[in-house]
């Protein structure tokens, strides 16, 4: 610890990246969330990356039990949660060991020195105590006795029995938050009012946490070990009202908004699975919107219940992650045959099988596009950022309802759990959704359930309870005349398969053409991504252009049908690179469509891309053109 007596300086930064790491019981996700809100309220642009183990409480002090939360906050528009953190807060030796590698050289390291007991140091696999062996010399190390300082601050509570020692110790994350908030000149007001609301029935807990929070701040202010205080001024964001939102919450609200705009009841059938369960939690809270949530007995029943609700005229949604989507495949096929509207949300995670339940991956693209028996094309929509999940969910619902088709909506663990500021849309500006349910027969001889709209090829949606329109739907092939009656005719089957594909393809006629970002119009390399990689790709392209490279960027949210112009864009650049968190699934799609030698940058380590690695990948490809 430095005992420098030089006056403290305030340094203005355009951006900073902090990572909080500790045991899964240390409250790191909450600490990160609170700091995020402080940054948001201070007007920064920000992006977050929560990372936690699959086990609820892995053994304390072990590497397996380390949970972390990273955020980048900035005075400018940013697109990623940051590459190498500037500040690492490590609550124990295991957290230090797991995350030190990420900390930028000379970065600020704050550790809880109380946690560096011989036992914990051994448990983390260190031979010697890293606080004592000089191995941390290259960093700006602050070994702070976070636990004992917290306990001392809370003595009034433990002395008179309002808190026991364990409860008091738990407030050490608030001490850490107070210290880091002080370092970045943050006001503690938002966190204090949040604590007051969160524990409104436990005034002692509120008071103790506030005391710990302020003690952390005061510690920073009085000790002379911190030579710099930082300021990250507000970003110049577009005018509007903002809030912070995670991908799962945004998706849930997007469904509510779509049902509201369409005038339909929202039915949500789901079976709990990481990382999609939060959507069920959120929607089950929103009963005042008339939402009917159903926790099914399994994934198949969750999908089935949604299909039944769709037949009944509801806006039907089911959700899962990869393993559950695999189970829902047969129902999605039936919905394709029945041509009923339904949204299937896949919050992707590391696969195959149980894979990496809490880590992110984009490896369900082919599953979404093709994961059903037979030729069963459905539209596929992906969210590109946490707040974009609102738009994407709304869009998926709109496509489903208006085209009478199941639609797959792709999020991933990263988008689902991370958050960003969201410039709130005007509810009145949301695109209308027209269910146009049938009310009367469509021919003079009666009702034909598969008599299609000549333009969209969508069939009528007649719901039970409507007199005169009784009809039967099923999974067997239909005749081509619109009756919905079974047909085993070979030629008819071929025509019906083609017709169902044509119906999905024609949706592209009504989507805006793809936009390719190529400011100079002379790019040598087209960088392509889809879904959650937009942030890192945008950041990479900015850096590449700053370095004088001519690069273009195209990002897909509609994976099926592809928007008009995608194939042409792929064909018109000397090099095309698709970056995705799988082994090249979109790359293969584009290759098959265009026969262009599209390259891939693929990594599946359970973490999102950093801007830096994409810059390297792009630079390497540009070298080929020299």
């Amino acid at each position, binding site marked *: 610890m430095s005992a420098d007596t030089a006056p403290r300086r305030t340094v203005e930064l355009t951006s900073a990246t902090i990572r909080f790491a500790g045991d899964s019981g240390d409250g790191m996700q909450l600490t990160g969330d609170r700091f995020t809100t402080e940054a*948001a309220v201070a007007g920064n642009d920000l992006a977050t990356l929560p990372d936690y183990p699959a086990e609820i409480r892995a053994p304390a002090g072990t590497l397996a039990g380390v949970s972390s939360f990273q955020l980048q906050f900035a005075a400018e528009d940013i697109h990623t949660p940051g590459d190498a953190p500037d500040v690492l807060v490590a609550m124990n030796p295991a957290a230090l060991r797991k995350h030190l590698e990420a900390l930028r050289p000379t970065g600020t390291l704050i550790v809880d020195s109380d946690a560096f007991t011989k036992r914990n140091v051994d448990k983390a696999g260190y031979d010697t105590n890293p606080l004592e062996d000089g191995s941390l010399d290259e960093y700006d190390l602050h070994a702070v006795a976070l636990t004992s300082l917290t306990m001392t601050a809370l003595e009034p509570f433990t002395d008179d029995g309002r808190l026991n020692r364990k409860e008091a110790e738990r407030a050490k994350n608030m001490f850490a938050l107070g210290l880091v908030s002080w370092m970045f000149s943050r006001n503690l007001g938002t966190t204090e009012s949040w604590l007051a609301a969160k524990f409104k029935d436990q005034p002692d807990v509120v008071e103790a946490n506030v005391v710990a929070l302020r003690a952390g701040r005061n510690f920073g202010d009085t000790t002379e070990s911190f030579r710099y205080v930082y300021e990250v001024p507000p970003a110049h964001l577009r005018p*509007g009202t903002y*809030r912070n939102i995670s991908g799962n919450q945004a998706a849930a609200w997007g469904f509510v908004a779509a049902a509201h705009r369409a005038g339909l009841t929202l039915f949500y059938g789901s079976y709990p699975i990481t990382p999609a369960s939060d959507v069920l939690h959120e929607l089950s809270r929103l009963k005042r*919107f008339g939402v*009917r949530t159903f926790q099914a007995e399994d994934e198949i*029943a969750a999908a*089935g219940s949604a299909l*039944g609700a769709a037949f009944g*005229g509801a806006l039907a949604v089911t959700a899962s992650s990869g393993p559950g989507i695999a189970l829902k495949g047969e129902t999605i096929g039936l919905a394709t045959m029945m041509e009923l509207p339904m949204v299937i949300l896949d919050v992707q995670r590391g696969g195959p099988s149980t894979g990496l339940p809490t880590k992110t991956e984009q490896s369900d693209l082919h599953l979404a596009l093709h994961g059903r028996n037979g030729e069963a094309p459905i539209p596929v929509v992906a969210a590109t950022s946490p707040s974009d999940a609102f738009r994407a969910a709304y869009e998926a619902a709109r496509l489903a309802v208006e085209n009478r088709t199941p639609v797959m909506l792709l999020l991933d663990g990263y988008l689902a759990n991370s958050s960003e500021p969201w410039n709130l849309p005007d509810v009145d500006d949301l695109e209308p959704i027209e269910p146009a349910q049938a009310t009367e027969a469509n021919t003079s001889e009666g009702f034909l359930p598969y008599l299609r709209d000549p333009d969209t090829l969508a069939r009528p949606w007649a719901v039970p309870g409507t007199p005169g329109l009784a009809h039967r739907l099923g999974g067997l092939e239909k005749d081509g005349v619109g009756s919905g009656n079974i047909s085993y005719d070979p030629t008819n089957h071929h025509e019906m398969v083609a017709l169902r594909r044509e119906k999905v393809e024609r949706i592209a006629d009504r989507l805006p053409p793809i936009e390719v970002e190529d400011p100079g119009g002379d790019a040598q390399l087209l960088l392509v991504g889809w879904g959650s990689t937009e942030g890192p790709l945008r950041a990479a392209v900015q850096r590449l252009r700053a370095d004088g490279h001519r690069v273009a960027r195209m990002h897909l949210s509609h994976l099926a049908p592809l928007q008009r112009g995608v194939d042409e864009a792929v064909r018109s650049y000397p090099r095309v690179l698709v970056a995705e968190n799988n082994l090249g699934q979109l790359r293969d799609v584009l290759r098959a469509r265009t026969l262009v030698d599209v390259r891939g940058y693929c990594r599946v380590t359970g973490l999102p891309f950093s801007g830096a690695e994409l810059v390297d990948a792009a630079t390497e490809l540009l070298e080929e053109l020299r």
Partner: protein
Amino acid sequence: MSATDQTLPVLDRKDFASDQEVRWCPGCGDYAILAAMQSFLADTGARPESTVFVSGIGCSSRFPYYMETYGMHTIHGRAPAIATGLAVARPELDVFVVTGDGDALSIGGNHLIHALRRNVNLTILLFNNEIYGLTKGQYSPTSPVGTVAKSTPFGSIDEPLDPASLALGAEASFVGRTIDRDRKHLTETLAAAHAHPGAALVEILQNCPVFNDGAFSQVTDRKRKDDEGLVLVEGEPMLFGAEKDRAIVAAAHGGVEVGEGPDALERALVHDPRQADPTRAFALSRLKRNGGPLPIGVLRQVERPVYEDTLVAQVEQTQAEQGTGDLEALLRSGTTWQVD
């Protein structure tokens, strides 16, 4: 239901028959069930537009195509789950599930038990023929041990399920058993199940003339049915035999058994399907397995909250307390800030 709406035309059974040619095998028990259902709906004043048949896969699951109502022919085993979603979205509809022993008890066992325990307002018709018909004659989960079928040339070796025992274990509020060939009993049982609020399981012993002919002759054969069947009537002592000389009496450990002679007739148990405790109903469902007659009738009929009614009530109560949701207010809830 609009059953009492006098302005609506009176329908007869033909109004419930679709224009599709019925394609079950000649002599199949399904024909009798279809005819009984069409007449029953007409007689009770059901409306085609408010009635929905949901089926899975199998011979019985073709049923919706032949009914001039709304219908869904769905996926093997999944009809109870699909019907649950429909009932939750539209509690006012009259939803029937048509399924078979393979569909309901093998591939779809999970959905059946959960629909029953939730007490979703579904009338579930389980056509039990103790064989797989559509896949051409493999043994089913209700086939007796030793069944020689396509996939078991040396006899099946697995213990069968009893649909009624399973349903009772799954907290079913209504469990009945009837026979395809007994039109009157079939109609009465359908009526009781249909009138029941909540999930009603009706096992219909259904003859498959092609792959398992005569499987239920013990209750259909005139020479055997009096001695080997037991017709359950609420409030009546449980007696059987041509001379009604045998009785169902209490046995040890809460079970029931067959008693003979005057003493037994005096000890005959009176059938009460409305007992809150399902123990007696369960014991009756085991009677045949324990060497007794096969009971036909309503084994259990108790009232408990209907799933979708409670679900909708919770939504309505929340709306009464919090007001109906305001989307604008939702987006602006919690911490927000203004950028100018």
